[in-house]
């Protein structure tokens, strides 16, 4: 990067601003609005984490003579750094939000699909001990594939059943990890 290649054949790229003044200062492409908001959300997540970790550190017993560094010191350090980085991320996001190039918002249908997948995953956790590994994993595969846009439900179900059956045979029967068996034994 430090030696620009003065190749006359490659002119300015299409879509490159001729003056290039704002783009040239930061070599990285500027973050779009969605990434900036994501950075802010990450900052908030760290702040929540910092509160949890610091509260826990405060509740732990102090050091004894035998161990000068008690169980609370390392969490306190991690919690404090989380708070600092969290604040930095939120401030950074707030400052960049105005200048960030707009991006397409995530459509509601996709958020609903994500919610659907979470419901499916929790349902899988509930069903696993009751319905056995093969049936619940096949349902998980089929449901997830359909949420991700699989076109033909019956084909998908067949793929899922085949994959899960192979996994069950290899891991349960061959290697010996005991996977939950439903009322029908697999």
């Amino acid at each position, binding site marked *: 990067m430090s030696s620009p*290649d003065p190749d006359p054949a490659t002119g300015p790229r299409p879509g490159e601003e001729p*003056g290039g003044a704002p*783009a*040239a200062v930061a*070599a990285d492409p500027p973050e779009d609005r969605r*990434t900036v908001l994501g950075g802010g959300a990450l900052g908030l997540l760290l702040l929540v984490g910092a509160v949890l970790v610091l509260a826990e550190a405060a509740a732990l017993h102090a050091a004894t003579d035998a161990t000068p560094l008690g169980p609370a010191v390392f969490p306190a350090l991690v919690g404090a750094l989380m708070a600092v980085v969290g604040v930095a991320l939120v401030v950074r996001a707030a400052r960049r939000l105005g200048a960030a190039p707009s991006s397409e918002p995530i459509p509601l249908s996709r958020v609903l699909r994500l919610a659907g*997948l979470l419901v499916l995953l929790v349902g899988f956790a509930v069903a696993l001990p009751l319905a056995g590994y093969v049936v619940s994993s096949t349902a*998980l595969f089929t449901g997830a594939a359909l*949420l991700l846009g699989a076109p033909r439900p019956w084909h998908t179900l067949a793929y899922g059943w085949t994959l899960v059956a192979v996994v069950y045979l290899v891991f349960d029967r061959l290697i010996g990890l005991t996977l939950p068996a439903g009322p029908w034994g697999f």
Partner: protein
Amino acid sequence: MDQLGALMQGFADAVTLGNLVWALVGVTIGTVVGVLPGIGPALTVAMLLPLTFRLDPASSLIMFAGIYYGGMYGGSTTSILLNTPGESASMVSALEGNKMARAGRGAAALATAAIGSFVAGTIGTIGLTFLAPAVAELAVGFGPPEYVALMALSFVTVSALLGRSLVKGAASLLIGLAIGLVGIDAQSGQARLDFGVPALLDGIDVVVVVVALFALGETFERLLRGTGRETVEPVRGRAVLSREDWRRSWPAWLRGTALGFPIGGLPAGGADVPTFLSYSLERRLSKHRSQFGKGAIEGVAGPEAANNAAAAGVLVPLLTIGLPTSATAAVILTAFQSYGLQPGPQLFTESGPLLWTLIASLYIGNVMLLVLNLPLVRLWARLLTIPAYGIYAAVLVFSTLGTFASGGTFDDLIVLYALGLVALVLRLADAPVAPAVVGVILGPLAETQLRRALALSQGDPAVLVSSPLTVTLWVLIVLALLAPLAWRLTRGVRERRRTAPPVPVTAVESQADQD
């Protein structure tokens, strides 16, 4: 040379039928997951960690090492044919490799990547063979203060080097450290961050964390962002190199190896930096500079070699000091721990035969990978035609399988999903995930060493800077923290100076940035 004798004994142990089969299984799985976008070696090894309950150490470690090396080979296939690198270290290969594939030279790109990976992987493994025992001997003298400094250096460089922004890397690392705190504190017996949930008392299993961060985060993000259609470039012709290709490739392989192994071997490495360095070096040295950006073979050969040599280099600090500098290395460290083995200087004296069998199997795995990846590359390329929904649905099946096998309760699965949402936030913020993995695994070790150091000094923190080595390491840590800042400042100044003559210079500069 006792290394050679030990290595020969290692080969004798590694060429038993069982171990050869495990190596073949490992490199095959590694190639497959390397090729499939969205799954990488770290995730795969993590999902297979529960197998350590069933297999003996040699078998599973040989398999995991095969997955580790295989993932590097497979990753290049994806970046060349699909232009979506499976992992960041393969990103650079996509720059020239995908251009070559579009120009109908995909076969040559794949061949130079595979042979370059073999050359670099073999030289890197030779380096590991001779360097590791020496480093281990040096590291025998390390006490807790040295380990604290080394781990702090690793934390800082991992968050600064992986990803674009130090703050986001640090955020990822801290999330990992916080997750690593969960569970009963081994020294005081007090439960930390368990929130009254019994499943959290033992801590959150590494399998759950890695699977959540890589697999679930990726799947959730895929669902939110939608699946864009990607075009797989067909491979035309046989994967052979012309005389011209050879002549341009081999110096690039060697230069890439020379950059990759030492940087990967630093207790601060990772495979990303040397690939970028190799790319810019090849670009500068090449006689065909105008081809760069349009499919220059050196731009594939160098970075691919650097990538694989760095992968071998990363094993040096992992095996000799117990210091993982990449996500996969961190997970492999966990595999050692689940057998009660702690990588570090004692490993060579205590488990020498196991270690030498492992190193010998790395040589064997490299040969297997060359055979798997040259003639069979079109078979692997066909994996890329599996639709994304199938891959991610299968990833969910394997993720829940790995989680269930490691813990086996409803609560473990709920923890997995919750951490998957945390990973989604990381991804939406464009923050790297690997520092979190390193934090989870290295955090508890760092805390133990810190407490040991202070117990030895009876609470005097000066013990942390009590030797020349520790002082040097802490200076390096400060430099690593300040370097990106200083670099950005100087670059900002330079850019502003350059923008003075308006049109031509900025056009060239942005050209250089995009390549």
